[in-house]
């Protein structure tokens, strides 16, 4: 199957009671979403994102054009068995509690009782609702219902996940979890269609995006391609002395117009700081009646079987590495909660916190070091010249500038030069 989702000339016109055309919600939309892709659909309110999703799910019928999902017409029962859908609001039964809700949706997929229980336990842990799983959803906050909505979308271990405004109404923890999950699922070979008007969310997780306006596709492409400033270069490093900065400026000035050189001390993002504080509170077992930070992605969410190409193998290895971190992290967290804290344990606890927060994939260049511990960094934009692309698909680096810096630093501080991998780690 070449495309998981494909539309051609998809048009949806809303007519009034008398059949008069009132609104063209989607206008001749062509979409081609490949397997294992995390695809973002962006657009302002009323741009046709949700309408497109509803057509893809068979909840609306196209006025013109056609759509195929997993090779079938939208709404086919067999196709639906492979889809997970999180609507723009979690439309769930308020009289059921979280566990009953997941049992209900599990039954719709024909899952056996044992399998349902296993998946539900895992999903409730994942979305951090295990402690409130017996409360009716009618008593949940909006963010908590979004979490259980997400869990129901994953109960069938879907091949295609369709998320409509997934982070709407979620607190920063939930937002981060959803983004982590989408990234993780993408790395496991799932196809994700994510629709949002929150640009940062889409930017953080999507491989490709399209931007809709007035029901029409205005732009489409890989996030890297659309967002890269190909006429600038950004260099990051550890703390530098003023002299070193001056020398760098001199070197850059010799290469390009020094008016464009800026040196800044970066700061951490509020999101990271917030998550750090909450994680500490959770480790300290502060009581809460709300949701807590969930565990890692549920084990039952399988990898796509078709992924045999090289890129997928690399992704598999990356995910495997992360799973090891997550599993060791969980074990360490339990230790922290049950024993007195020594220095070594304190160090392990710090690692735990970092691991709980750190999940940024290697392939995303934008704000790529946002998960690193807060430290001073030097940012030096330069003119594009002699640029080389990093292996990890990250930002373009001026080789000559790096060489100069390394040579100069060696001479001054007698320290070994940083290799590529250390750079990768810092960015990852």
């Amino acid at each position, binding site marked *: 199957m070449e495309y998981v989702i494909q539309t051609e000339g998809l048009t949806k016109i809303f007519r009034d009671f008398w059949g008069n055309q009132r609104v063209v919600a989607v206008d001749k939309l062509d979409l081609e979403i490949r397997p294992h892709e995390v695809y973002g659909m962006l657009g302002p309110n009323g741009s046709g994102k949700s309408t497109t999703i509803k057509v893809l799910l068979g909840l609306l019928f196209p006025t013109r054009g056609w759509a195929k999902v997993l090779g079938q017409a939208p709404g086919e029962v067999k196709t639906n068995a492979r889809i997970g859908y999180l609507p723009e609001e979690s439309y769930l039964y308020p009289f059921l509690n979280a566990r009953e809700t997941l049992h209900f949706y599990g039954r*719709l997929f024909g899952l056996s009782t044992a399998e349902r229980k296993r998946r539900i336990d895992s999903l409730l842990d994942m979305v951090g609702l295990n402690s409130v799983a017996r409360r009716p959803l009618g008593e949940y906050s909006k963010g908590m219902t979004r979490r259980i909505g997400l869990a129901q979308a994953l109960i069938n271990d879907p091949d295609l996940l369709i998320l409509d405004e997934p982070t709407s109404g979620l607190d920063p923890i939930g937002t981060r979890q959803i983004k982590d999950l989408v990234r993780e699922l993408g790395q496991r070979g799932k196809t994700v269609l994510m629709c949002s008007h929150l640009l940062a969310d889409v930017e953080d997780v999507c491989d490709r995006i399209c931007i809709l306006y007035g029901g029409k596709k205005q732009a489409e492409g890989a996030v890297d391609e659309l967002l890269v400033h190909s006429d600038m270069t950004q260099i990051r490093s550890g703390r530098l002395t003023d002299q070193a900065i001056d020398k760098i400026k001199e070197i850059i000035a010799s290469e390009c117009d020094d008016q464009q050189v800026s040196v800044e001390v970066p700061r951490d993002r509020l999101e990271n700081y917030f998550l750090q504080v909450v994680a500490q509170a959770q480790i300290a077992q502060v009581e809460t009646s709300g949701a807590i930070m969930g565990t890692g992605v549920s084990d039952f969410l399988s990898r796509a079987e078709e992924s045999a190409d090289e890129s997928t193998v690399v992704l598999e290895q990356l995910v495997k590495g992360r799973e090891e971190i997550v599993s060791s992290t969980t074990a360490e967290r339990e230790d922290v909660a049950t024993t007195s804290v020594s220095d070594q344990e304190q160090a392990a606890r710090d690692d735990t916190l970092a691991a709980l927060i750190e999940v940024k994939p290697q392939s995303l260049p934008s704000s790529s070091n946002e998960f690193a511990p807060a430290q001073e960094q030097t940012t030096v934009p330069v003119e594009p010249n002699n640029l080389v692309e990093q292996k990890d698909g990250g930002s373009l680096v001026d080789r000559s500038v790096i060489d100069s810096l390394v040579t100069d630093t060696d001479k001054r501080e007698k320290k070994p030069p940083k290799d590529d991998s250390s750079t990768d780690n810092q960015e990852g």
Partner: protein
Amino acid sequence: MRPVIAIARNLIVEIFRMRVLLAFIILIITSYTVFFWWWLAGNEGLADEKVKTFLSYSLSLCAHVLSFLTIFISIATIARDIKRKEIFTITTKPVSRIRYLLGKILGLLVLNLVLLGLSGFLIYGLARSLQRTEPTTAAERNRMRELVFVARKSVQPVMPDITQQVLEIVEARVKRKIKEQPEYYRHNPVVVKQMRETLIKDNTKRIINAQRTVEPGKSILWHFTGIEPLDREKGYVFIRFQQEVSGEPPDAKVINQWLLGPRNPLEHGGRYVEPQREAVRTVHEFPIPVTEVSPEGDLFVVYNNSTSNRGTTITFPLKTGMELLYVVGGFEGNFFRTILMIYLRLLFLSVLGLAAGAWMSFPVAVLFALVIFIMGLTSGFLIDALRMEAGEIQRSIAGTVLQILPQFSTYDPVPHIEKGRVVSSELVRQCLIFLILIKGGLIALAGYLIFRFRELARVIV
């Protein structure tokens, strides 16, 4: 099948959590036991009449309350799923729309089974309790056993075919009229047609009345056939009658004299029944030993209008005036079939409610379903009125519409069991075929097609 069961189960959980079941049980217990028990205790009258009233009241109340409940729940469950968009997360799972509807119907069936079952047990228990506590004499106990806790079949007397007689009279009258104004009637054939219809109607009524009317000092012979009592050796068959009179007799009572036998008593002699002075316009019943029925199932009954009635002409109205009842089964089977027929009605209403809720908003769907339901309840009266009063065109149009409607009055078992009459398997079968399979099936098909091809979401831009 799992998704169907899951949806059904979810509906039942919803109803339980909404406390509907609790409210229903409290209402039923209150109305049956507290209110009616108290009313019965304070009411003086025949024990069997009390039990008849109890059965009629409680079963009708149960059937109507559950009917309304079914209409509301069946519409709410689907209309609310659509309005609150919970249906988005169901129909995007591997659940076809037909399975979604089947799940809802299954849920309603189980729910009604529970509610109706509970009510049925309660009503049966209370009725049997009344049977033990209310009669004060052996005669009352016998009456209760023979008139209430029994399943009796009814036969009407054989009446001569009057069609030819009516037509001859009508044609003679029409010819005479045309002869009086030949030009007028030649140019107005519709008037002739209407005149003929009116004459047929009037003369039919007149001749039937004449056949069922007894002048003072005269007798009338009734012939019942096809009587097949359960026990041909012992027990009774029952004559049930009601009388209209010309002129008001003293204290509105007349003396009734009966002679009966397996052959025409006027020719072969028969058994006299002790004359009784009984109120007119009231339904009366008296037993006849089953041995008076011939082995072929015939019974002849002669009624004599006594000269003591002082010139009062007595008429036995059509339908309720004269019938014979005989035992064909027990109360338990009859009660079960009664509950079954109520259950079939609830099944029909479930289908109607779901079909309406599948394409209308909740208030509109409720209005629609209630109109259908109430027209169905009164369909018998409407059809009779049309038959008696309306012209041919009105009759054909309105009659067709009424025939399409569910005829709940035709398939209402309560009047049968209340009078100790059998709710026959044939009636249950007809209810199943006409009400459920044909009419319910058509409504279900229409509802499914609309639901299958409608957009469940709305375009919001």
